[in-house]
């Protein structure tokens, strides 16, 4: 199958978001194909999270359009959001409710069949079974982030939007989360769009990356293509860390 036969899951066209005079996202276009893991990366304030929030329906675009599964969120919100899920370490849950209660509520929202078994499986997979009856307020940041991941996997989403999913996790758990994501891609063909500042992680996980700076797309392609394009050098190995630092310095200098 060539690339043109693979369905486009996310299609972003000339997306722009302004907050007052500030242009957080500026004329961004990219596509994500089914079964692909794509990294949305760039320095702080590059517009990564704003794009993810627009795709999940939390922010409306100022200009431009996007479609998910070939449909518009404006007209088919319910059907689209049933097929995707979203999490971010900045997402919180009702603090007095236990982990299990929170997940039970979201399992009901997503109409998960046999939700007890599904929740038990996810608690096991993300190694938080021991805290299932603890209120969210008593969890560490890493444990709360893992509850967010459990929530994100409840409905077996075809598209996962992950905003810095491993930022609060210790290296071992972060590694296990990455393995879960790669396994999902292999076994179910799940499409994953995620943002991260961890360039080693992006390099290891992503089929393609979209590098952003000041809300604009600087480069897009496989990690090695982006490395060559941004550093303007012949490289044999991807070096996204260097690319990141190069772009971040340029962004900082432009701001000064």
């Amino acid at each position, binding site marked *: 199958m060539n690339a043109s036969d693979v369905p486009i899951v996310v299609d972003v066209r000339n997306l722009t978001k302004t907050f007052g005079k500030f242009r957080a996202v500026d004329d961004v276009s990219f596509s994500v194909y089914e079964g692909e893991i794509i990294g949305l990366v760039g320095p702080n304030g590059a517009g990564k999270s704003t794009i993810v929030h627009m795709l999940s329906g*939390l922010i409306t675009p100022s200009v431009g359009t996007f479609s998910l599964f070939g449909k518009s969120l404006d007209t088919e919100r*319910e059907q689209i959001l049933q097929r995707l899920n979203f999490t971010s370490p900045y997402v919180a*849950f*009702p603090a*007095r*409710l236990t982990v299990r209660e929170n997940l039970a509520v979201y399992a009901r929202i997503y*109409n998960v069949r046999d939700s007890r078994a599904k929740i038990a499986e996810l608690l096991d997979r993300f190694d938080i079974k021991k805290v299932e009856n603890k209120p*969210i307020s008593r969890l560490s940041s890493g444990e709360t982030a893992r509850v967010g991941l459990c929530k994100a996997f409840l409905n077996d989403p075809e598209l996962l939007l992950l905003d810095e999913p491993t930022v609060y996790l210790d290296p071992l758990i972060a590694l296990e989360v990455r393995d879960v994501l790669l396994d999902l891609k292999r076994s179910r063909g799940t499409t994953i769009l995620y943002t991260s500042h961890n360039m080693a992680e992006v390099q290891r996980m992503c089929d393609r990356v979209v590098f952003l700076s000041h809300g604009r797309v600087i480069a897009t392609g496989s990690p090695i293509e982006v490395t060559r394009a941004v550093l303007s050098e012949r490289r044999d190995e991807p070096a996204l860390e260097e690319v990141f630092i190069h772009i971040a310095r340029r962004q900082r200098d432009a701001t000064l």
Partner: protein
Amino acid sequence: MRLYRIEAVVLRHVYELRHNGNHLINMVYFPVVNIIMWGFLTIYLTDRQGLQSGLISSLLGGVVLWGLFYGFQRDMGQGFLEEVWTRNLISLFSSPLSVAEYIYALVCVNLIKALIGLVLESVIALLCYHFNIFPSLIEFVPFIAVLMFFGFSIGVVITSLIVRYGSKLEGLAWSFAGVLMPFSCVFYPLSTLPAFLHPLALALPTTHSFEGMRQVLAGGGFSMVDFQWGVTQDIAYVALAILLFRRMFESARSQGLLIKMD
């Protein structure tokens, strides 16, 4: 509109009720303390001041029904604030749950909570002060419905303002009904108010509810005029409140406030 998503939000608030003592206090403690305090006042007024029983009934009826209205509109606002305080809005509104489903669920939860308070107050009023709301209940129900729909409108307006301006306006959830109370003729008839305040009072469905309730207690039968005015105004206020909410919610989405709200 999916019933299971409404159930999910109801379940979320049932869990909250189980873990959060404040809800139990709002639902049980305040109504009970309120009716006990007013009950003693009516005993004093009857025994020492020779107040007629019809007036006592009006007072206690006012206490019970105002408590119902106040609790309902407060809990509508507070229910939404719970999501703001816990930053749960992001997960809720990036899910298939629609705003309408969320509001329906809040109404269901808070209606049940308000009715529990009403039953408790009514039972205490009956057992301790021999004020029996139940024989008149059939005639009260339409006025209670008018109160609840207005409480819903006020709750939605407060929620709209919180969506748009954040939790700095959370005090409205507890205080806004208090502004309406003097003009709603809860404990006195409309004729008590100065003439220039009559148009304001008559623009409130609460006034028609309490006027209607007093007519029932005075043995004057069901006041169709007050009921019709109350229903007409409720329809207008509910429509305006929903329009305001949609506008504020879209404005919040446009400005990215659902993400930043705390």
